[in-house]
């Protein structure tokens, strides 16, 4: 009884009053009032002009006419079902992983459903908008189906954490298998019509390049991060040189060098695809940044962990594999997410070295005489795609940071 009475009492919640709110947040002093009026007027003018431009001057027909080009480029139309399946696999697995990662172990964390309210509202609006977009009914159905798959995957992932003990490993294996399956679905062979890499364009290529580069740069990144932390001077020197040189060069330069140098420094009879050369460039670049991110994770692990492992008789590789790396990588997940985000944006530079990803295909479409001069429309649309993808990823990374408790434990 007495303990309760000494508990601090929360301050009374202020009554939120519309007029008071406006006064406090918008017209607090002459300077703020001036700012509010100035920005308000400017904003109003810009908004009016923009809405006028959108509704009367802009010619939006360029978007629906080229929508398949933006999405998958010149991928043969008869094989579109393959890209839908790829999307379904990736979204389901993504949902499962998300559900698994965002479920905190504490029982009170369980009441969440993996998404906060705003995200759910966003998904609802997205579904609603899709229904009213000028798309063919099949695509609409597929998109709605994909959204359901993502949500369902998330639910299953949360269920799985409680029912299946080794769900993390299962999902990891799932990603690995899906990677091979997706590659098969993309390129064909083994009973499917083959599709050359020059036909993988648009958003498809953007996502493909970003995912494959980060996957391939993962082992390299780990090696160089460990190398940089190593006590062996030679290994350390090579790792530092690799990391610092490739972090000091512009990505365009690396991509360009990969395009012109790889055919020169590899045996002359190896015919290397443009796409493969670009993957090499992106991987070299990303692994240097990834190594730094992983190094951050390694540095966050107290030295005692490695020493304790040594004291137990584990040798260096085993203590790294069993004790240090799992902890370091867990701390690195949000940084990894941010790296993937910037890689996703950086794939646009492939347009400069002649690949036709999302930015490249918009340049191609603008070069079409029918759609001459529609720069603003096309770039705004493509910008929206990047914006939506990147905002989703950055939100996800923020929530992961909270859920994994990075820096809290």
């Amino acid at each position, binding site marked *: 009884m007495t303990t309760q009475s000494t508990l601090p009492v929360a301050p009374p919640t202020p009554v939120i009053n519309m007029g008071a709110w406006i006064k406090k947040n918008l017209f607090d002093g002459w300077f*703020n009032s001036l700012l*509010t009026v100035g920005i308000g007027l400017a904003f109003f003018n810009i908004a009016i002009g923009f809405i006028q431009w959108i509704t009367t001057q802009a010619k939006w027909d360029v978007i629906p006419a080229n929508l398949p080009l933006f999405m998958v480029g010149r991928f043969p139309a008869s094989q579109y079902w393959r890209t839908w399946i790829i999307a379904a696999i990736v979204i389901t697995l993504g949902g499962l992983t998300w559900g698994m990662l965002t479920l905190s172990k504490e029982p009170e964390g369980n009441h969440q459903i993996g998404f906060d309210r705003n995200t759910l509202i966003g998904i609802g609006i997205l579904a609603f908008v899709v229904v009213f977009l000028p798309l063919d009914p099949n695509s609409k159905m597929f998109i709605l189906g994909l959204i359901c798959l993502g949500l369902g995957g998330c639910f299953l992932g949360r269920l799985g954490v409680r029912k299946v003990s080794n769900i993390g490993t299962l999902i990891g294996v799932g990603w690995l298998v899906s990677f091979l399956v997706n590659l098969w679905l993309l390129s064909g062979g083994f009973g499917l019509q083959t599709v050359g890499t020059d036909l993988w364009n648009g958003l498809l290529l953007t996502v493909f390049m970003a995912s494959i580069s980060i996957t391939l740069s993962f082992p390299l990144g780990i090696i160089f991060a460990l190398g940089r932390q190593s006590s062996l001077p030679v*290994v350390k020197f090579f790792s530092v040189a690799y990391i610092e040189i490739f972090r*000091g060069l512009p990505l*365009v330069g690396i991509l360009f060098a990969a395009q012109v140098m790889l055919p020169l420094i590899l045996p*002359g009879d190896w015919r290397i695809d443009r796409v493969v050369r670009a993957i090499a460039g992106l991987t070299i670049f990303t692994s240097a940044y990834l190594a730094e991110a992983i190094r951050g994770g390694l540095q966050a692990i107290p030295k005692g962990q490695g020493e304790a492992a040594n004291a137990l008789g584990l040798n260096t590789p085993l203590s790294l594999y069993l004790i240090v790396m799992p902890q370091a990588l867990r701390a690195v997940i949000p940084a990894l997410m941010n790296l993937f985000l910037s890689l996703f944006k950086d794939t646009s530079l492939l347009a400069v070295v002649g690949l036709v990803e999302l930015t490249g295909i918009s340049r191609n479409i603008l070069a079409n005489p029918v759609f001459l001069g529609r*720069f603003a429309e096309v770039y705004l649309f493509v910008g929206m795609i990047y914006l939506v993808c990147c905002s989703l990823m950055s939100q996800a990374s923020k929530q992961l940071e909270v859920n994994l408790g990075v820096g809290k434990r």
Partner: protein
Amino acid sequence: MSTTKVPTKVPLWRDDRFWKITFQILAIITVLVIADFFLFNLRLNMAKRGSLFGFDFLGSQASFDIGEYLIPFQSQDAYGRAFLVGVLNSLKVMIIGVILTTILGVSVGIARFSNNWLVQKTVSTYVDLFRNTPILLQLLFWYFAVFSNLPKIENQIAVLGSFYISNRGLALPWLGDSPTAWSSLLGLIALAIAAFFVWQQRIKIMVEQGASGQNLLLVLLGMGVVALILFIFGLQWTFPVFTAGNKLNGGLSLSAEYCSLLLGLVFYTGAFVSEIVRAGIQSVAKGQWEAAKALGLNSGILMRLVIFPQALRVMIPPLTSEYLNLCKNSSLAIAIAYPDVYAVSSTILNQTGRAIEIVLMIMATYLLINLIIALAMNFLNSSVQIKER
């Protein structure tokens, strides 16, 4: 005592030193094998193409034009000079870009703490919008959707009768090119440095002796008046004037390519810098704010004297990497046809086919620039760290 006996007792594969040495030798061999593999193929491929390695091509005639240059350049000049023009053009974007980015990023970062709701929302929308779209797309947008849609030079927009904006770029007043103007500029810089020391002296006197510092304030005022006179009359401002053939006389004209590149880089990097500034300010302990307010400092002085110097310590390392990013991203100039070092080099490569030499030159240039920035920022970093015993 027994250290000499240890190697005989411990089997070789249990000896830590053995593994350390073996592992390093293995690392060296791996690197050498890879390097040899590449070099062997390179020699073979080069021989097949009949090309030789060497930088003597830099002396031959470039025979292409460069749109803008800081040192005179004609198509008869050598490749080496063309490369130099590219380097200078790059530096022009990088230096101005870093300055403008700092100004924009710091203002936006501080504006995030405004108690005006509208300012907060505007600023956070700006940051989200520019951080989440690729820089290349933003550059293309600035160049093709903004600058190309501006009015033609015949009916360009004039602001205050001295700034002109058209689809060819921007024209603004600039200092004259005469000995008087240059010496005035030098005088202004000297005055600024002198004023800084006088200011420090004044603070010192005020703090140590409790004096009012009135005399030195008067000195500062006098310096200000001299500076103002120099600024208005000494610099011999020239204003852009357009003659009949739409030729520009006087003033400074910036091409649409340069403006697009600069605006794109500044707005993109500024968004990242503002987040760094925000994080830096947030990292300052709350007690510092409260203590400063309790001392009666107003919000401007509080930010300038108490919060910002402490935030600077946290801000400088990530700021360095943003500056480096800006410099590296300036190589995207090739997408909008601004002749920076990368764009000029790829033209040279197309003409000469000297892939390796040119890739090496580009790499060396960017690494050198990065090194200089990193060194300068490290120097700045060490000067703002807490001075401890």
